[in-house]
């Protein structure tokens, strides 16, 4: 496709050493083998309550299981966040209810999703370990996804008008808009929110890997269940080993994943002038210098991207002919989807209603009292959090973003501000 010397990004690349390639290759092989072994466990017979060993020797395997669960859940979260944020940002009709729904969903604690998600997944895969595993993954997912969706949505909403206009005037197709404008613009926000989300995932790991549902005991092999078993057995040494493993994994992830990603994402900073200090990562530089990866990029990634680009460009060019029919079709599809969603929601509501109707007054009173106590606790926690995070008094010039987000009711003239501050 392209002659290698013609590509400008090749100019600055120094040839790497062959041991880098060897290292990358063996790392890749190890990862592949690990995933294969773990997947075999997943597809194995249904063993909802695995025997959790407290031996240190079992720890690496458990850690691998947990990391894989986290990784899959994170992948799902990213996908969901992209789709949800995109739809909410570009379809005003959908936006009106999608954003409140997101806000409500993120406020629901993970554990209240637990029974429903678990039972549903076991019902879908009754004879395989896959069901329980998927259940645990979905639970981690519910703890990770919402802030990422918010982040992507708000990034899309804050793309400067001139960039949108440039993309429109130069007829960017869907693919180009996504890869040249929308994803790059939201990359930094997504990266930071991903870090927060994965941290939240660790937080819920223990609850998601080992729990009792009714009379059924669920135990999945993993770091969370190891720690929980050790704690309930009072085995301090095992707890320390487990904690060590967890901290080790978190530090490794930070060094091997997040730092390179942050250093890489720095080029997506939306800035007019270069900032003096850019984050760096030795691993990223190593990867960028690797001849094997460069070859892969040249021979596989770039041609693929090129094909996609041309495919979408041709499609956009062709679509000009019958715009009326397509729009009509799309609006009908949209309406059909809306009807289906409404019907589903109505059906679910009916069932919930029937369920609630079965409650006695005493039970209802208990529920309400419980909710009241929870509310008080949440408010107390919020007050402590606010006292910690909010400075006692706003500085005379609040941050710009904050000012912009305020409603019209409290706008202030920026130009006159300095004069107020001068003695």
């Amino acid at each position, binding site marked *: *496709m*392209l002659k290698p010397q*013609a590509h*400008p*990004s090749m*100019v*600055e690349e120094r040839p790497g050493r062959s041991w880098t390639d060897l290292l990358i290759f063996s790392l890749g092989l190890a990862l592949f083998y690990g995933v294969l072994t773990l997947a075999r466990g997943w597809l194995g017979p249904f063993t909802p309550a695995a025997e959790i060993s407290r031996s240190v020797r079992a720890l690496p395997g458990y850690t691998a299981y947990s990391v894989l669960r986290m990784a899959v859940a994170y992948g799902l979260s990213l996908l969901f966040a992209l789709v949800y944020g995109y739809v909410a940002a570009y379809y005003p009709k959908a936006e009106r209810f999608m954003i409140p729904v997101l806000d409500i969903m993120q406020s629901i604690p993970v554990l209240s999703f637990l029974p429903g998600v678990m039972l549903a997944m076991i019902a879908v895969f009754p004879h395989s370990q896959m069901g329980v595993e998927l259940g645990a993954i979905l639970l981690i997912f519910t703890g990770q996804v919402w802030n990422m969706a918010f982040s992507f949505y708000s990034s899309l909403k804050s793309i*400067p008008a*001139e*960039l949108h*206009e*440039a993309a*429109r*005037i*130069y*007829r*960017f*197709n869907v693919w*180009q808009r996504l890869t*040249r*404008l929308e994803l*790059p613009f939201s990359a930094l926000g997504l990266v930071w929110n991903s870090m927060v989300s994965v941290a939240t995932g660790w937080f819920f790991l223990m609850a998601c890997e080992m729990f009792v549902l009714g009379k059924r005991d669920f135990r999945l092999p993993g770091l969370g269940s190891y720690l929980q078993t050790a704690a309930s057995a009072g085995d301090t040494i095992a707890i320390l080993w487990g904690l060590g493993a967890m901290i080790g994994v978190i530090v490794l992830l930070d060094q091997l994943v997040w730092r390179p990603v942050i250093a890489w994402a720095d*080029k*997506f*900073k*939306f*800035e*007019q*002038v*270069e900032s003096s200090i850019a984050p760096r990562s030795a691993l990223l530089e190593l990867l960028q210098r690797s001849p094997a990866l460069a070859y892969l990029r040249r021979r596989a990634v770039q041609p693929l991207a*090129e094909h996609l*680009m*041309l495919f979408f*460009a*041709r499609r*956009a*060019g062709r679509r000009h002919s019958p715009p009326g029919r397509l729009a009509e079709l799309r609006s009908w599809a949209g309406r059909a989807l809306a009807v289906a969603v409404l019907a589903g929601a109505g059906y679910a509501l009916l069932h919930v209603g029937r369920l609630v109707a079965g409650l006695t007054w005493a039970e209802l009173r208990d529920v309400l009292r419980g909710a009241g106590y929870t509310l008080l606790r949440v408010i107390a926690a919020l007050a402590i959090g606010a006292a910690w995070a909010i400075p006692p008094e*706003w500085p005379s010039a609040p941050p710009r973003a904050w000012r912009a987000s305020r409603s*019209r*009711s*409290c*706008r*202030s*003239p*920026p*130009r*006159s*501000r300095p*004069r*107020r501050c001068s003695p």
Partner: protein
Amino acid sequence: MRLRTIPAQRDQIMTAPEPIVEAREVEKSYLQPEGNQIEVIAPTNLAIYPESFVALLGPSGSGKSTMLRILTGLIPPSAGEVRWHDGPLSGLLPNVAIVFQNFALFPWLTVLENVEAPLAAMGQHAIERRKRAIKMLDTVGLDGFETAYPKELSGGMKQRVGFARALVVEPDVLFMDEPFSALDVLTAENLRGELLELWTSKKMPTRAIFMVTHNIEEAVLLADRIVVLGRNPGRIRADLAVDLPRPRDRKSARFLELVDHIYKVLTQPDVEHAPPSGPRAPRTAPSYPAYPMLPHARPGGIAGLLEILIDRGGKDDLFHLADELVMEVGDLLPIIEASSLLQFIHVQEGDVEVTPEGKAFAEADILTRKSLFKEAALKHVTLLRQISNALRAKSDGTLPDDFFSDILDEHFSQDEAERQLQTAINWGRYAEIFDYDAKSGRLHLTES
């Protein structure tokens, strides 16, 4: 003065040339949340002919950027139609490019990738688009910068990338939205010269240029035809042919004459300079009680201008003044307008003269200045008078700024309404008519 109006000239000399893009009775209005409509552009006719360099000149708030976006098809007009060659247009112009005020480059793409992007959207293959992009980068003088990222470049270089990206699509009409106003004076002048050189030597693959600007000299220096817009609502006030030979000398008598003339048109809002109504001449604006607009100038700027004028004997030629101050005339405009609104100066035929009130103001000490400013502001500035009266009417002498925003929202776009209030607050504070508490967003009458 050899100022001819375009429609007349075309009917006589050319045998009805076909315009590339034409706006017919185009208008734009926005619906406010409260339900009332704001007219941004009154019904307007505007055509762009081949081989012409058109400058659309107007003060802020005259809807010139909106006009550009309507002509390119970026936003649809509220009424009227845009025609491309001889057919009506729906959506974007088929072959169009814009050079943006703030460059609108993608910071995560290299210079080369930025220029290649429109070609990729057309479905061109990698080798072809690389060849064309590199050629265009050479044309605008950026060879050697292909792999740089925009943030590594100076403002002038960034705008060169903007030009390269626009020209690489070989547009029929090159649209430019204040392309030089984000650059410093020297860089802008340099880039203007290079653009003109590309245009006059036909090295540019484009048949016409349409430039939006607020800079009078820039328009006279570059364009063959200048369309002057008035505001509230935006409408064509004058349509002038510039028949000065190129290269144009900024100091030549005819150049100055033309700048002065356009100045006169801009500074005398009540006089219509539009061409006599022919078949295609713009309709006169509907009788519309326009709300007077505050020019965005600072009291200190006004005082400064008056001091300079008095230093020069109380009277000077505007263009001469701007030249001495090394300022673009367009940048002086808000200060001139503000001083003229307060009747501190008197503008006639491009000459500025300090009035007795202005002289008193400029020569007074700080406290007297404030009281003179207050007197003039309450007498001549509707908005400040309204604010003052409203505050006086309240027993506690205080009102939320929203109250005034709502009044302004009925007459201006939301951004402009905000700027209007900001300027009014600035003036009111200076004159000690009222004070503003940014925290609570309330205006307070100043106790005297």
